[in-house]
């Protein structure tokens, strides 16, 4: 399905992906190499974290304590920074798949040949997943290399940083797939970005309120960042909850959104 699409996609996206890798790796290194200076004030930081409202603690990933390696990585990287970066990347790439590319006039020639809209969208959706995985994976790789030198290698489950990066990618892909679907249905880049960003902001806010607001708790089944945090891979490693809730559920939702996008794209005019 994607064999014909991916070489072109690689040529079109490798530069921006490379810059994303550089940025995310630099952010990761900044976080890990700052740990030794933070660890000395662990007790004070934990006390400050506990003084925050529960919702904010959840949103910041500080509920488990910020001074432990797992808590520190969760707070500084996996609870907010990496998810937001990955979401921006996924939304940007997902928007490009149809709406961005269509707005630039690229699809006029591309879809004049035997390549179908379905194959184009699914091929590019897989490419989007690969781009997000490569960038998140580079963050996990940089983390893995610097855990021991930074003193962050105690109390972490084996391979936990890879698992956390995978669940972060999976949750971000939901928003990327939403941007793709809206872009495929409307052909409008601004609408795709706006819708996905609004849903990201709304679900992020509700995720922070799970546990403090009854409504947010009731809606947890539609909050990708709650799914991603439920598995707690940094402390627990790979578990059934992580597999089902943090990985497979967001991937399945993403696939459904892409399928909707394909169906809508096949039924409308190319702008």
């Amino acid at each position: 399905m994607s064999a014909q699409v991916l070489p072109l996609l690689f040529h079109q996206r490798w530069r921006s992906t490379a810059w994303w890798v550089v940025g995310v790796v630099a952010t990761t290194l900044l976080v890990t190499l700052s740990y030794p200076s933070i660890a000395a004030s662990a007790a004070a930081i934990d006390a400050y974290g506990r003084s925050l409202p529960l919702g904010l603690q959840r949103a910041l990933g500080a509920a488990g304590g910020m001074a432990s390696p797992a808590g520190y990585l969760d707070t500084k990287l996996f609870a907010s920074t990496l998810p937001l970066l990955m979401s921006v990347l996924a939304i940007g790439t997902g928007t490009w798949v149809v709406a961005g590319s269509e707005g630039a006039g690229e699809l006029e020639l591309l879809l004049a040949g035997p390549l179908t809209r379905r194959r184009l969208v699914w091929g590019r959706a897989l490419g989007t997943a690969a781009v997000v995985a490569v960038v998140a994976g580079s963050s996990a790789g940089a983390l893995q290399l610097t855990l021991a030198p930074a003193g962050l290698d105690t109390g972490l489950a084996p391979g936990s940083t890879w698992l956390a990066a995978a669940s972060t990618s999976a949750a971000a892909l939901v928003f990327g797939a939403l941007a793709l679907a809206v872009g495929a249905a409307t052909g409008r880049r601004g609408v795709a970005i706006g819708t996905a960003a609004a849903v990201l902001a709304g679900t992020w806010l509700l995720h922070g309120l799970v546990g403090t607001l009854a409504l947010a708790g009731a809606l947890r089944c539609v909050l990708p960042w709650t799914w991603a945090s439920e598995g707690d891979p940094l402390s627990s490693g790979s578990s059934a909850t992580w597999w089902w809730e943090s990985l497979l559920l967001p991937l399945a939702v993403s696939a459904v959104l892409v399928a909707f996008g394909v169906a809508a794209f096949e039924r409308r005019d190319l702008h």
Partner: protein
Amino acid sequence: MATVVSDPTRPAAAAPGSGLLHASALTKRFGSVVALERVSLQVGAGEVVGLLGPNGAGKTTLLRCAVGHLRPTSGTLRVLDGGPGDPSVRSAVGYLPADPHLEPRLRVSALLDLYTRLRGVEERARVAPLCERLHLDVRRLAGDLSTGNRRKVALVLALAHRPRLLLLDEPTSGLDPGARSEVEALVREAAERGAGVVYSSHDLAEVAELASRVVALDGGTAVGELTGDGLAGWGRQRIAVRLADPAPPAMLDGVPGVVAWSADGRDVVAQVQGPVAALLRVLASHDVQSLQVTDTGLARLLEGQRRPVHAAASAPRSSA
């Protein structure tokens, strides 16, 4: 005095029934805007059909329907005996959009390679000769190409797989005269190989040179159709000059390209088919005070034929 010049290079009209493209009562609306209104068109093997009309006439809409980018609102549209969106159909169609967009950061060579791979064209050897004929520098970045050169790249992509149906939207727009001639030659060769060609333009002289049939569109409606000898006269230019002295008798007799001429004292009017170089050489030997060139073109054609024609209007109306 007017003479119709038979052009041996003009592809012959297709035999009826060998339709590569069949559009019947095709209508396309964008909301309340009617882009095409019950337009019917047939294109046979080896036939070059010109689509002529001013901006907004519906030429591009018709071609975009034929390549599957737009879904007709009503009417019948068959391409190579299939639906325009069918991948097997599109693999045998070559399409040149009016404004081809190319990935700007790719070199032309890489872009051609990727796109032909996407099409599954095994014979990539065809790409190089086409680039050579169009003087295309494949080492350049696509983003650095001029509009004309981007059009050449898209034309190579449209021709490389030897399509059975070629849909060209203003293929010579922005091209220099040399490239324009080469494009016209490539179109003729495609037709000689048996491909059907739809050639959209707003330049009647250009279309009349190439096409065996011209369908004029205006406001989304087919307003006229020219074929054979009726078409030949439309490819001419009318050149009017005022001389300092009365025109000598037989001044333009036998001048290549001049198919008709008349003189009234110091005023001379010539109808020229094709290049005007020979006429200009003759005029250079006279004291020419003014010269006016009029394309015997689109406006005159449309003026004379502003009545809708539906060649296949009796065909049953159905959804494409």
